C-alpha cells in the first residue's frame, strides 16, 4: 500500500518537474466547473458545484434576529462548513476541526470583505430586527480544492437566494441584494512551480497552499497562506497575478448563474 503510494507520488512529482500534471492540465488550468443552483427547494438559496470530481453543496437559510450592537442597521452573515465523513475517508464525524473552520472562515471573508451582500438592505428595524444569513457549506466529495468549490457554491447560492420576508411576516419576498462576485483561487506551490486548483492526487505531494480571493474590480479581498512552508516574496507576486486572472475567468461562469 505504502509502496504504491510512494510510487504514485514520485510519478506526480516527476511529471510536475517536466512541466506536466497527471491529469493533463496546464499548471494554470482549473478542472471543469459545473454550477447548478436551486437544487434544494426548501432552502432560500442553494447551489451544487462540481470542480472535476470535487462536489460541494451550499444552502442558504435566512432568519430574523437581533443585530450586533456595533452594527444595528446591518444584516448578519454566518458561514459554517461541515466536512462530513461521507465526503472523504479522512473526514471524521464530530464538531468542526481546524480545517473546516479555516475553510468556512476563508469563504466567509471573501463574501464579507468584497461586500458581496448589501447588508444595509437587510435591516428590518434598526437595533431590533435584521436578517441573519446562514451559509452552510456541505462537502459531498473531496477530490481536492474543496475551498474554491465552496467559495463558488457560496456566491452562487447567494445569487440564487430570495429573502423569505412573507414567511416571517415582514413584507414581500425579494432577491438577496448581491453586488459583488468574489472568487477564491487556490494554488499549490511545489518546487517553485505554481499549480492552480490542486487535485487530491496532487495534494499528496505537497501541503503548500495559498488562496487569494479577488473581486469584480480585481481587488484582493482575502489571502490565506495555508500549510507549513516558506513562501518566496517573488513567488507570492506571481501567484497574485495568476489568481487575479483565473478569478476573472471563473467570474464569467458566475455571471451566467
Amino acid at each position, binding site marked *: 500500500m505504502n509502496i504504491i503510494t510512494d510510487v504514485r507520488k514520485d510519478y506526480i512529482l516527476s511529471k510536475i518537474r517536466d512541466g506536466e500534471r497527471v491529469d493533463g492540465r496546464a499548471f494554470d488550468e482549473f478542472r471543469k466547473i459545473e454550477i447548478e443552483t436551486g*437544487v434544494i427547494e426548501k432552502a432560500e438559496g442553494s447551489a451544487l458545484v462540481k470542480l472535476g470530481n470535487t462536489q460541494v453543496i451550499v444552502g442558504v437559510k435566512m432568519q430574523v434576529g437581533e443585530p450586533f450592537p456595533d452594527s444595528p442597521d446591518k444584516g448578519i452573515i454566518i458561514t459554517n462548513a461541515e466536512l462530513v*465523513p461521507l465526503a472523504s475517508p479522512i473526514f471524521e464525524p464530530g464538531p468542526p476541526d481546524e480545517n473546516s473552520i479555516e475553510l468556512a472562515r476563508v469563504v466567509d471573508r471573501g463574501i464579507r470583505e468584497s461586500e458581496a451582500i448589501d447588508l444595509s438592505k437587510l435591516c428590518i428595524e434598526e437595533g431590533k430586527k435584521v436578517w441573519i444569513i446562514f451559509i452552510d457549506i456541505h462537502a459531498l466529495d473531496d477530490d481536492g480544492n474543496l475551498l474554491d468549490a465552496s467559495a463558488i457554491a457560496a456566491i452562487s447560492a447567494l445569487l440564487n437566494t430570495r429573502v423569505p420576508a412573507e414567511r416571517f411576516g415582514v413584507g414581500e419576498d425579494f432577491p438577496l441584494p448581491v453586488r459583488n462576485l468574489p472568487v477564491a483561487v487556490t494554488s499549490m506551490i511545489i518546487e517553485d512551480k505554481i499549480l492552480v486548483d490542486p487535485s487530491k492526487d496532487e495534494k499528496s505531494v505537497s501541503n503548500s497552499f495559498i488562496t487569494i480571493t479577488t473581486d469584480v474590480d480585481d481587488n484582493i479581498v482575502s489571502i490565506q497562506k495555508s500549510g507549513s512552508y516558506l513562501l518566496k516574496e517573488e513567488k507570492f507576486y506571481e501567484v497574485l497575478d495568476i489568481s487575479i486572472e483565473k478569478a476573472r475567468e471563473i467570474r464569467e461562469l458566475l455571471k451566467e448563474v
Partner: protein
Amino acid sequence: MSEDIKLIVNGKRIDGRAFDELRNIRIEAGVLKNADGSCYLEMGRNKIMAAVYGPRKVQPRHLADPVKAIVRYRYNMAPFSVEERKRPGPDRRSVEISKVSREALESIIMTELFPRSSIDIFVEVLQADAGSRTACLNAASVALVDAGIPMRGIITSVAVAKVDGHIVLDPVKEEDNFGEADIPFAFFIRNGKIESIALLQMDGKLTKNELIEAVKLAKKGVMEIYKLQREAIMKKYIVEDVE
C-alpha cells in the same frame, strides 16, 4: 388538528396520489469518487446522498471486533434540509434513526467475512420530507451493493400511514404530521422475494387489523422500490461495461 385539515378528498390524497401509490423515486448509483460505494436518491421531496466506506481498518482501533466487521450508520441532516435551519450535529432523533437503520442493515451484511474491519455507511439528508429514514435506507442499500459489500440480499424500505381513517402508502409531510399513525418498514428481499422484516417502528394509534393491512401495503410498495434499486445498480454496471 386532523379535524381541520382534510387529507383525503374524493378518494385521492392531498398530492393527488392513490392510497397505494408511491411518490416519484429517482435513484443513481456510484455518484461519488471518494466513497467505495455511493448513491443519490430522491423520494418525493427527499434528497439523499449515501456513501459506503469499507471494509476498512476500524478507527479508533479499540472498537474492532476480532470475529466480524462492525457496521456504523450515520444519518445526518444538512442544516438547510428543513424549513427552519437545523443546528449541525446529531440530535436525539437522528441517533435513534441511525441505530435502527444500522440494525436493519447489519442483519443482512456478511460481517463475518471481515473481522477487525468496519463498514461505514453515511447518509446525508440534503432535503427532508416525510419518510427520510426510509429514503436513506433505500439509498444506503444501493450504496452497499455499489461498494461490493457481500450481503444476503437487499434492504428496501417504505413507510405506511393512517390518514383520515385510511391506510396509505409512502406519506408526505402533511399526512405524517396530521395523520393518525406512521409506520416505517424495511424488508429483507432475497431473490426478488420479501423474506422478513428488518426495520419496524410505529407511532400513532392503530388496531391490529389496520396494522396487518399496513404490512400488506408496505410489501406492495417495497417491491416497486426494489425494482428501481435494481435498475439503478444494473444501469451503473452496464454503463461501466460499455466503457
